[in-house]
């Protein structure tokens, strides 16, 4: 094991040696630089490996052969080694990335780079406070030099501002140091820990010291200088400045903070949270990519500082958590800055160019996911652990603030991703310097590796070893294959997974498992019509299904939450594929992440901080916290079921998605939320908050969703939006059934789960097929298609009969169970809404079939053929299923009925014979079918007998007030179909919810717009900010002495 001091030695030596080279001999100089950096990285990594594996112990390195505190000593522990690896690797890669700039500027700049990395390593290593100062100044000056690498002349101004600010900082630092020394009689950090400073009346000195170090972390608002550097410097250097410098500075602050004792931690927490929130909000209004990244790094460092502020409660998990966030940030931020270097223009939309190079898009996504802390990256595990520790110690407020900040950050980062994916992309594929692209990929791989390590270190199963996830990620590797082959593999994967796991399912899991896996496979049949490679479809789709697969087998809260996030992110990418779905995908993600965070909070509260919590143990949660757990989890799940109030993402997301994606996200994905509700109600049952029975609240929410969802549906001109809104209503029914908390209510909910999957997938597919042919989704542009698209018509007909609950099809079963269920329910008022919404559903369903298939055929559609085979095939399967399910609902429901019976006292249905009987009524599907069938046939025969010679007449051969119309457009009554209804009940549709959420986002953006005026760009003002920051905190802290 090479002593870590050689990191410094090699760095310096190489820097000095560069001076000996001829100025023209640049390749050699660059080679020397790279070699030196490589050695430094190798040393750090070997230490990291040794320490992590326990092969080596943390060691002190003495200088001058004298014991500390009398001589400077360095220390390499696990933390140090990790950070050193980050710093040196960033240096190495960045140097490679900066090759051209360095070559052009010559050996001096290389020396500066080397010294910068050396200094950063020194900051991490040293245990001597004044030595820390020296390395800091080295970092400052070398930063001043590296800023000049940029070809942007504004960088020089930025560099000068930076120098000005650092002058102020170093003044504070020196004063702090010398008085600390006076109080301690030593400069060695470890001695401070021995006797806390405030005790010795050196609180103020320590405060100044701390402030100086914290100011290096670019706390809001004293960070304008840093943002200017981020914006103007060479991205290769910005990567170092963000990843390496930030890391080192954080560690320095942590080192000193650790000696100050617990009373300083709240200060750090406050600064950290403040910075995290403020910077994220400010970033909302950024349209310059590098400045945006700047804001984001500032925020992330703030987050780490806030975590450091919790070190008193994190215990031995501290490294795991802080390190997770820090490393995720470092890798991601470096990667993003590197990407921004290969992009020529600075506005966010310029990133569309990445689309011409899909691997870069994957890298982009990877980095974003790391920043947000999505699985399977380190930030995810860190977030989870952090949440539990905070809750355990009752620091919920801190957690909530962190989650809010993270949500905002996700907002602007994924909005950016949306821009990059959806906006107009240039056609000419740019030439990237291979070196640079290589560096970017390296960073992405490092990110995945870090995720793997963190997973291995976590106390849970490593997500990157979870079979479904691996399969989904595997699709990234076979992206090159043709779509059809991938489709076969996908279907096979789903079926195999089901076949492997169904043995262990209980009936509930079985129903959802069938819908998720087999149902998903059926929908995939429709994907066969897509030709070509269909890049970027299968990985997200399979990611979603992987999440669903993991969800139903999840036993612990961790597994459940991880699965939830996985399916969320997968479905987001999937929805984003739609043509106009950019804003809708974003709002979907925002609501889902918000919901996910609510779930996280809920689980943490439930576990009381002692994760992992078995889902089943939710039942054991009692006391004052239980209702809150219930509320949070319910909110989380209801974001997925798009309960009214949280629904505004759904219509756009489902409507704009591709033909075969809509059924996936509507028919399948929505059920994830219901599954969650099932588990929640099964385990926690009725909870009371402020004396209110929460299931009663759910009852109202469900009823309102049912009513308003249906009501909004009948006024849509866009067929897919209509279906989307109807999903809101249908989920409302299901929620209502669940919230009734009785046997039949749950049975009805399950009936809806099954039915809704079938007919919604069916309808979305048919409408999708029609839209594909007609090239529009506006129903009033269609009409009279029944003759051209008979199969689609039949599908829709069966679909709407089922959905409207008209006998004899299976929808009636749902209604029948509903009536029997409400007989025993004690809350009656909400049912009024459900009663009203039932017939309303009938309105939009009729509109759907009438305006598309009946009425007058448009001239431009006369040549249309029926929908493509592969889109029709699954529809026919569904039709067949519906007819069968109508006659024999028992085949699916009996066992579930029995299973639910375990949870409730009152008895369910009795299934003997063909008749299904409840304690109130009876229902005999087969006989109904026979009777109706017979009557229908007889009458049909009668009509045939009377009217067998009837033949089709021309389209316009109708009685039309003694006139004959010639234009289908004027004759097809479709636009604003239910005008009277709008006149009567339109007032119910005031978009209050939309306005509410819109107001919130606007408020945030306005705040950002207003606040960022703070950064006037004047270096002097920035210096003032720094002083204000210090002084205010001094006053807030109440004049420490």
């Amino acid at each position: 094991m090479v002593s870590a001091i050689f990191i410094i030695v090699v760095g310096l030596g190489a820097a000095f040696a560069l001076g000996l080279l001829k100025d023209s001999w640049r390749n050699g100089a660059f080679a020397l630089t790279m070699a030196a950096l490589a050695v430094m990285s190798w040393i750090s990594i070997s230490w990291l490996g040794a320490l992590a594996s326990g092969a080596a112990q943390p060691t002190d390195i003495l200088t001058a052969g004298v014991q500390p505190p009398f001589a400077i000593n360095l220390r390499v522990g696990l933390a140090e080694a990790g950070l050193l690896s980050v710093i040196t690797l960033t240096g190495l890669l960045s140097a490679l990335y900066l090759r051209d700039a360095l070559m052009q500027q010559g050996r001096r700049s290389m020396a500066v780079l080397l010294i910068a990395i050396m200094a950063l390593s020194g900051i991490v290593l040293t245990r001597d406070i004044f030595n820390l100062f020296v390395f800091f100044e080295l970092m400052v000056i070398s930063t001043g030099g590296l800023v000049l690498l940029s070809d942007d002349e504004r960088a020089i101004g930025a560099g000068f501002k930076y120098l000005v600010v650092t002058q102020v900082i170093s003044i504070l630092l020196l004063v702090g140091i010398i008085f600390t020394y006076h109080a301690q009689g030593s400069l060695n950090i470890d001695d401070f820990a021995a006797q806390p400073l405030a005790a010795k009346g050196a609180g103020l000195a320590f405060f100044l010291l701390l402030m100086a170090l914290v100011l290096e972390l670019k706390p809001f608002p004293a960070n304008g200088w840093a943002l200017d550097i981020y914006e103007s410097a060479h991205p290769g250097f910005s990567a170092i400045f963000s990843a390496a410098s930030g890391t080192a500075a954080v560690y320095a602050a942590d080192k000193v903070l650790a000696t100050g004792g617990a009373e300083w931690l709240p200060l750090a927490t406050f600064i950290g949270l403040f910075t995290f929130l403020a910077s994220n909000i400010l970033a909302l209004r950024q349209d310059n990519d590098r400045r945006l990244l700047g804001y984001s790094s500032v925020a992330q460092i703030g987050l780490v500082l806030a975590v450091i502020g919790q070190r008193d409660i994190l215990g031995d998990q501290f490294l795991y958590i802080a390190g997770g966030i820090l490393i995720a940030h470092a890798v991601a931020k470096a990667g993003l800055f590197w990407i921004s270097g290969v992009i020529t223009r600075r506005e966010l939309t310029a990133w569309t160019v990445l689309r011409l190079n899909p691997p870069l898009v994957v890298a982009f996504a990877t980095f974003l996911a790391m920043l947000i802390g999505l699985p399977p990256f380190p930030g995810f595990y860190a977030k989870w652990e952090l949440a539990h520790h905070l809750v355990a110690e009752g620091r919920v407020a801190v957690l909530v603030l962190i989650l809010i900040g993270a949500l905002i950050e996700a907002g602007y980062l994924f909005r950016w991703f949306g821009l990059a994916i959806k906006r107009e992309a240039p056609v000419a594929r740019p030439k990237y310097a291979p070196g640079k692209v290589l560096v970017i990929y390296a960073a992405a791989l490092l990110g995945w590796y870090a995720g793997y390590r963190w997973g291995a270190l976590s106390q849970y199963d490593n997500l990157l070893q979870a079979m479904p996830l691996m399969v989904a990620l595997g699709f990234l590797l076979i992206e090159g294959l043709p779509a059809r082959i991938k489709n076969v593999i996908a279907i096979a994967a789903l079926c195999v997974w089901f076949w492997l796991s169904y043995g262990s399912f209980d009936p509930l899991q079985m129903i959802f498992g069938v819908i998720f896996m087999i149902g998903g496979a059926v929908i995939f049949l429709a994907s066969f019509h897509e030709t070509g490679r269909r890049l970027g479809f299968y990985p997200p789709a399979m990611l979603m299904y992987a999440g669903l697969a993991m969800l139903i087998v999840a036993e612990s809260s961790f597994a459940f939450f991880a699965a939830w996030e996985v399916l969320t992110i997968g479905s987001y990418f999937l929805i984003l594929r739609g043509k106009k779905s950019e804003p809708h995908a974003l709002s979907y993600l925002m609501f889902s992440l918000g919901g996910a965070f609510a779930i996280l909070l809920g689980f943490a509260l439930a576990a009381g901080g002692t994760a992992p919590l078995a889902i089943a143990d939710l039942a054991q949660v009692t006391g004052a916290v239980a209702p809150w757990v219930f509320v949070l989890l319910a909110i989380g799940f209801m974001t997925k079921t798009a309960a009214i109030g949280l629904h505004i993402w759904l219509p756009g997301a489902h409507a704009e998605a591709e033909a075969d994606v809509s059924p996936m996200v509507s028919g399948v994905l929505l059920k994830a939320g219901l599954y969650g509700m099932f588990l929640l109600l099964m385990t926690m049952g009725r909870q009371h908050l402020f004396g209110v029975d929460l299931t009663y609240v759910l009852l109202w929410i469900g009823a309102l969703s049912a009513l308003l969802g249906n009501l909004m549906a009948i006024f849509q001109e866009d067929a897919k939006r209509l279906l989307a809104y109807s999903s809101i209503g249908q989920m409302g029914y299901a929620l209502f059934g669940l919230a009734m908390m009785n046997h039949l209510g749950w049975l009805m909910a399950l009936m809806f789960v099954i039915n809704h999957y079938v007919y919604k997938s069916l309808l979305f597919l048919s409408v999708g097929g029609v839209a594909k042919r007609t090239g529009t989704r506006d129903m009033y542009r269609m009409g009279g298609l029944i003759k051209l698209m008979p199969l689609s018509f039949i599908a829709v007909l069966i679909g709407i009969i089922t959905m409207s609950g008209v006998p004899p099809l299976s929808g009636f079963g749902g209604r029948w169970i509903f009536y029997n269920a409400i007989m025993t329910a004690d809350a009656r008022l909400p049912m009024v809404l459900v009663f009203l919404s039932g017939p309303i559903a009938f309105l939009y369903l009729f509109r759907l079939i009438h305006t598309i298939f009946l009425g007058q055929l448009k001239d431009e559609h006369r040549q249309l053929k029926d929908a493509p085979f592969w889109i029709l095939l699954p529809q026919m399967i569904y039709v067949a299923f519906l007819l069968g399910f109508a006659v024999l609902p028992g085949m699916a429901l009996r066992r579930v009925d029995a299973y639910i019976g375990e949870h409730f006292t009152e008895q369910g249905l009795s299934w003997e014979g063909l008749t299904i009987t409840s304690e109130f009524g009876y229902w005999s599907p087969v006989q109904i079918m026979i009777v109706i069938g017979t009557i229908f046939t007889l009458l049909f025969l009668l009509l045939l007998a009377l009217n067998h010679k009837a033949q089709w007449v021309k389209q316009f051969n109708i009685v039309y007030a003694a006139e004959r119309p010639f234009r289908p457009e004027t004759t097809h009554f479709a636009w604003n179909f239910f005008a009277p209804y709008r006149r009567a009940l339109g007032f119910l549709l005031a978009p209050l919810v939309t306005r509410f959420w819109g107001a919130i986002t606007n408020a945030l953006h306005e705040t950002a717009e207003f606040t960022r005026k703070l950064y006037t760009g004047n270096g002097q003002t920035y210096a003032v900010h720094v002083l204000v920051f210090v002084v205010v905190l001094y006053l807030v802290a109440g004049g420490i002495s």
Partner: protein
Amino acid sequence: MITIAMTTGFVLILIGLYGALTNTNILRMIVSFTIASTGVNVVLVSVGYMPGRTAPILDDAVPVGSATTSIIDPIPQALVLTAIVIGLGVTALMLAYAYRLFRIRQTLDISKIVELKW
């Protein structure tokens, strides 16, 4: 004695900062900062001073044996040297920057160098 020196140092720091915060001319700012850092150095040494003792050099005047009782604290002096050198380096760097800025912008007024903001 010490307090006077120390106070002087702090006053210098404040004066320097005041100058740096109020003069928009870059050169003046640099000068102000040098004043401030001089102040810092004064504070540094004044912390190490102990009344009635002599310089930490073990010549005939100060035998090795009695060093503990007769010399002043040597550490701040070592530190101040480093501080001075570093301050010098930074100043030189700032001057160079000032030169470049002037060549690019034809002005030394920092309030005019604001193309990076918000």
